[in-house]
């Protein structure tokens, strides 16, 4: 990408929803004419979407039970040791 580091920074701030209004205006204008930056943004958005698409796994069924079985026993007579 030939564009300035500052423009790349703006893209990341935009992705973080953390961009100043003025910077967003500059970025939008720039994207209209710069195919490199537009593609860069699209590739970043695609990577994020791919990573997010993996986000649905659950703990094994007996998970809670396994933990409860491994907890140290409460020592009621000597006071709690933690």
């Amino acid at each position, binding site marked *: 990408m030939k564009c300035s580091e500052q423009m790349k920074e703006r893209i990341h701030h935009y992705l973080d929803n953390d961009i100043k209004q003025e910077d967003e205006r500059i970025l939008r204008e720039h994207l209209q004419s710069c195919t490199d930056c537009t593609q860069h943004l699209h590739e970043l958005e695609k990577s994020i979407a*791919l990573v997010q698409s*993996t986000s649905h796994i659950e703990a*094994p069924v007996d998970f809670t039970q396994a933990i409860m079985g491994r907890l140290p026993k409460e020592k009621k007579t000597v006071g709690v040791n933690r």
Partner: protein
Amino acid sequence: METIVKNRIKQVKKGDQNAFAEIVDIYKDKIYQLCYRMLGNSHEAEDIAQEAFIRAYVNINSYDMDKKFSTWLYRIATNLTIDRIRKKKPDFYLDAEVTGTEGLTMYSQVAADVALPEDQVETMELQQMIQKEILKLPDKYRSVIVLKYIDELSLIEISEILDMPIGTVKTRIHRGREALRKQLRHL
């Protein structure tokens, strides 16, 4: 949610172990998922996720009730996964062939107990590919990317979990995203 959790924690502090089971039920999927995405291996993920809850239980008196419980729990789990990554033997990977088999990897072992229709198999293959790319990220980028995009936490929460300034979190997310872009753009 936080109110329910805090009431349960009070009970745990009084010695009611069963109240802890409810806390585990509330957070188990999130914590397990974090561990799985960080480590890429279901056995290790289960091991570390269990360890995180056990440490939370044992150290419950050092939890500051004025702060969000999930942040504290995430911090324990993230630290454990990073420790594990650093200690990890480099010779064990999910895509390594299982000894004595041809073309059989740990992925197929993990998936073997359920028969899946074709489209689900394709989805799984894509997901495994993405998982492999996540695992290629250096741990300092991997943790922020997983916390932000898989556990969907805010930048402020991530900065509290990792105990680092928000500016550092942002920089790492930017670099992590750039690394992922290079790895994933051809998919």
